[in-house]
């Protein structure tokens, strides 16, 4: 079974190689390289960049990332469940119903708390 994955692995390597070849060929062999201080300054509407770009950012992006992890794990649990649903039948539905129910309660709580609001 595992040997079926060999083409997948080769394909991934080929994908990386194609990207590498394009950048090396286009950027460093065919294209000119004439850097100067103005050209290499970070883009900012013609101003001098006056501070580092790695600023503090909105906490909501962080919240979204945490919520994403919870829901993505949920999906990871749902995948095998969906495939064997025929075999586990009603018991499977009830079990998953309880699991999803707990998650939905959490989802409603965070909705009411305003974690999903962006103004």
């Amino acid at each position, binding site marked *: 079974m595992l040997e079926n994955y060999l083409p997948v692995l080769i394909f991934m390597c080929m*994908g990386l190689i194609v990207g590498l070849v394009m950048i090396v060929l286009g950027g460093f062999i065919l294209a000119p390289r004439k850097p100067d201080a103005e050209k290499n300054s970070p883009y900012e509407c013609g101003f001098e960049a006056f501070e580092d770009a790695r600023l503090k950012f909105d906490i909501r992006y962080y919240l979204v990332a945490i919520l994403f992890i919870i829901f993505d794990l949920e999906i990871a649990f749902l995948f095998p469940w969906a495939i064997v*649903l025929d075999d586990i039948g009603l018991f499977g539905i009830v079990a998953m119903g309880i699991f999803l129910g707990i998650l939905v309660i959490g989802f409603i709580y965070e909705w009411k708390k305003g974690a999903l609001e962006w103004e």
Partner: protein
Amino acid sequence: MIDLAISFWEWLPQWIQILAENILYIVIIMVPLMLSVAYVTYAERKIIGYMQVRIGPNRVGPRGWLQPIADAVKLMFKEIIIPTSSNRYLFLLAPMLTMAPALAAWAVIPFADGVQLADVNAGLLYIIAMTSMGVYGVIIAGWASNSKYAMMGALRSAAQVVAYEIAMGFALVGVLMAGGSLNLGDIIDKQAGGFFNWFWLPLLPLVAVYFISGVAETNRAPFDVAEGESEIVAGFHVDYSGMAFAVFFLAEYANIIMIAALTSLLFFGGWMSPFASWADVPLLGDGFHWFLLKTMFFIYMFLWIRATYPRYRYDQIMRLGWKVFIPVTIVWIFVEAVMAVMQIGPWAV
């Protein structure tokens, strides 16, 4: 001469034979894919041009047919500017990290009955993994550029992509329930029997959620706040030029074709013909051309949506993802599960 070539081939060690064979197949997939990517960009400009009562590109070659080739040649001869304050290795790594998964996802796509590079048992899982990888390239690009616009674009794009990935994942759980397998070939075989046996009918809300999430995942209009030309100029790739930009561009369009192909595979029967009873009539039977036709239709939908809808505001995008799509998909998964176990209607398995 041919005898010589055959004996040379047999003289090679076996692992080289396997490697060469696989690379040949990969090239057979990749070259048409790259050409399609180039011509989707042309189709986009031309179709949106006509929708806005303009002509679109028409100068290079007859009717502008050589436009994508001219663009590629031009980009190849442009300097790649690496900003002084950037992390230069990450800066150059980011486009490759976007490109590799966008191409590699095609390894498991069934193009026709049994025509598939890798017939793996966890094909759909692999595709989800690959389409999720794309966000790394975006974040690394935004971070490595060390420009405020790029950083903003990367943050927006990442938050948006992960929000819609959940809706997408839930929609795929519905497909798995109906298909009963992670293998893409098996999922298509389950849809045999013509237009009304395809999964779009029992999974109707999930089709809409999946396709709209696909549009949002690829950061396309009307969800293109990550690019947001009018506010953050080009988002995460504002500092990229020349071939480094072109690689991002190619990856974006490869992802569009991917989403279109997946929509046709998972919900619209892939290479199955809509006329199951006319299978003997040439061209109306199953075959690669149906897959191509359906995929082209969904690519056209991407362009059509772009020409039709104005851009969403960021809070509206997040609201749609979290407060509309996730509840809709959770409810529908539950409905579908109950229907499937109770053996009711088209959901019975």
